[in-house]
């Protein structure tokens, strides 16, 4: 029989949440960061050939090298993605972020590797390094696991290896993929996410890289600006796949976060999806409810890059048409060049849904966040 302690421990004070940032991007300082987390053979290979790179189709991004120019030090030689102190100063402390979910800058290239075993080794090392060197140094960080999604069996192994870690709240995947994510090939990944209560976080990248289809359904645009503008279309393709393949019927606990997809398109997509389903329901009869209902229940969108509708009053109807009080979550994309600070976003939101967007929906979507 357990003894009742004479003085009970203090009741854990409920965190007074201000903001959860669902999308930030950190990076290795150097490949040697990974050395302690790799086998001797894998380290030798990494040392010899360097980190895999996904070829940059445009030799351009935005901002300065894709990041905030104000975050580079003098000489511009230190990548802000590699500086934990900068995340603390400019984001966590500076912006009042209570929890920030790390989606590694290194992830896309690893997910484009055809050599799945080396990809799996790198994923393990990158996750272990992040947990030790970022999460281990500031408990406000959480991790979306990097997984070798190109091979679901290996991906599942990694999810089971770390899915129980208290700071691991999601699994990270990129939109560029040889297959649409609703296809049954990926079901084991969703089963593993469901086992551990992890959200599946989908973020652009890798479109047109390696074995993946072009960045737009119409082919390869000439300029980075076009791919930036056209991003919603490949999120839509994956979302449609998840809906019509019945992924949410198969995995009723699954939450999918679409990060950096924009959200102005969501109401129109829902109308169109429901109209399509009403007409063609019999072809996929396992889709029991109008698609918009699955979206409301299972799919979440991030605020960045926040679209500023014109006229400004149109924002209200977009928020209304996507049930933003249930489906929209704050993200900053720190330290990328198109960063959105939380105070500016909070100001744009109607007061009635501000807390929902800034932290409450994130706490529901990533149930391990608040544990």
């Amino acid at each position, binding site marked *: 029989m357990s003894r009742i302690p004479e003085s009970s421990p203090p009741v854990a004070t409920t965190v007074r949440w201000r903001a959860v940032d669902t999308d930030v991007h950190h990076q290795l300082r150097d490949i040697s960061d990974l050395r302690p987390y790799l086998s001797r053979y894998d380290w030798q290979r990494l040392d010899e050939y360097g980190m895999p790179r996904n070829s940059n189709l445009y030799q351009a991004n935005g901002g300065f090298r894709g990041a905030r120019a104000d975050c580079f030090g003098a000489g511009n030689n230190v990548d802000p993605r590699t500086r934990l102190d900068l995340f603390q100063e400019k984001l966590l402390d500076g912006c009042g972020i209570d929890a920030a979910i790390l989606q590694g800058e290194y992830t896309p290239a690893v997910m484009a590797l055809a050599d799945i075993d080396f990809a799996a080794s790198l994923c393990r090392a990158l996750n272990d390094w992040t947990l030790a060197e970022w999460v281990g140094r500031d408990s406000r960080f959480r991790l979306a696991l990097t997984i070798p999604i190109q091979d679901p069996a290996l991906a599942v192994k990694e999810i089971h290896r770390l899915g129980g870690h208290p700071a691991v709240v999601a699994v990270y995947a990129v939109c560029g993929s040889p297959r649409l994510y609703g296809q049954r090939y990926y079901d084991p990944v969703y089963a593993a996410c469901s086992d551990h209560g992890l959200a599946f976080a989908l973020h652009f990248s890798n479109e047109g890289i390696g074995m993946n289809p072009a960045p737009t359904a119409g082919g390869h645009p000439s300029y980075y600006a076009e791919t930036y503008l056209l991003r919603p279309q490949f999120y839509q393709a994956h979302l449609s796949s998840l809906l019509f393949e019945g992924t949410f019927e198969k995995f009723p606990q699954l939450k999918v976060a679409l990060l950096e997809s924009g959200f102005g398109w969501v109401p129109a997509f829902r109308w169109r999806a429901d109209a399509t389903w009403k007409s*063609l329901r*019999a072809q996929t009869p396992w889709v029991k409810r109008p698609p918009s209902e699955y979206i409301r229940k299972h799919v979440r969108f991030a605020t960045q890059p926040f679209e500023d509708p014109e006229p400004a009053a149109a924002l209200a109807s977009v928020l209304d048409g996507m049930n933003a009080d249930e489906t929209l979550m704050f993200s900053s994309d720190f330290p990328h060049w198109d960063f959105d600070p939380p105070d500016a976003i909070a100001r744009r939101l109607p007061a009635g849904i501000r807390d929902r967007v800034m932290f409450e929906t994130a706490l529901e979507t990533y149930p391990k966040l608040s544990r």
Partner: protein
Amino acid sequence: MTGAARKPYPVCPVAELPAGQRRIVTIEGKSIGVFNVDGRYFALRNRCPHRGAPLCEGQVVDFVTATKPYTWETQRPGEVIRCPWHSWEFDLTTGRSLCFPDTIRTTSYPAGASSAVESEKIDTYMVTDLQGMVVVWL
């Protein structure tokens, strides 16, 4: 039901509307589809609530359903009419839409329900075999 107020309108001799067949007739200015579903008669207003298509000229099909993804099962053979224009499906036997789950579950509409909800059900009429004639009651 205000059966007493209804009047019988003969459509055709029973022999001319065999199982699986339909007839479209105009009664009191309304176009109405009369169906023989495996020996049972049903009559529906020939107007789709969506965009006004001649609903009863659509294909008569089974209800396709699934207990889990990647399976297809047919139920209720010949009891579904698929609109010829945008393929909305309606239950021939009740006039109810099969693509608005909430209205499938409801058996009666609350007073003052929005027209969007009301429109998901088609008017149906009683059909009987009266002395060898198929008769619609309006």
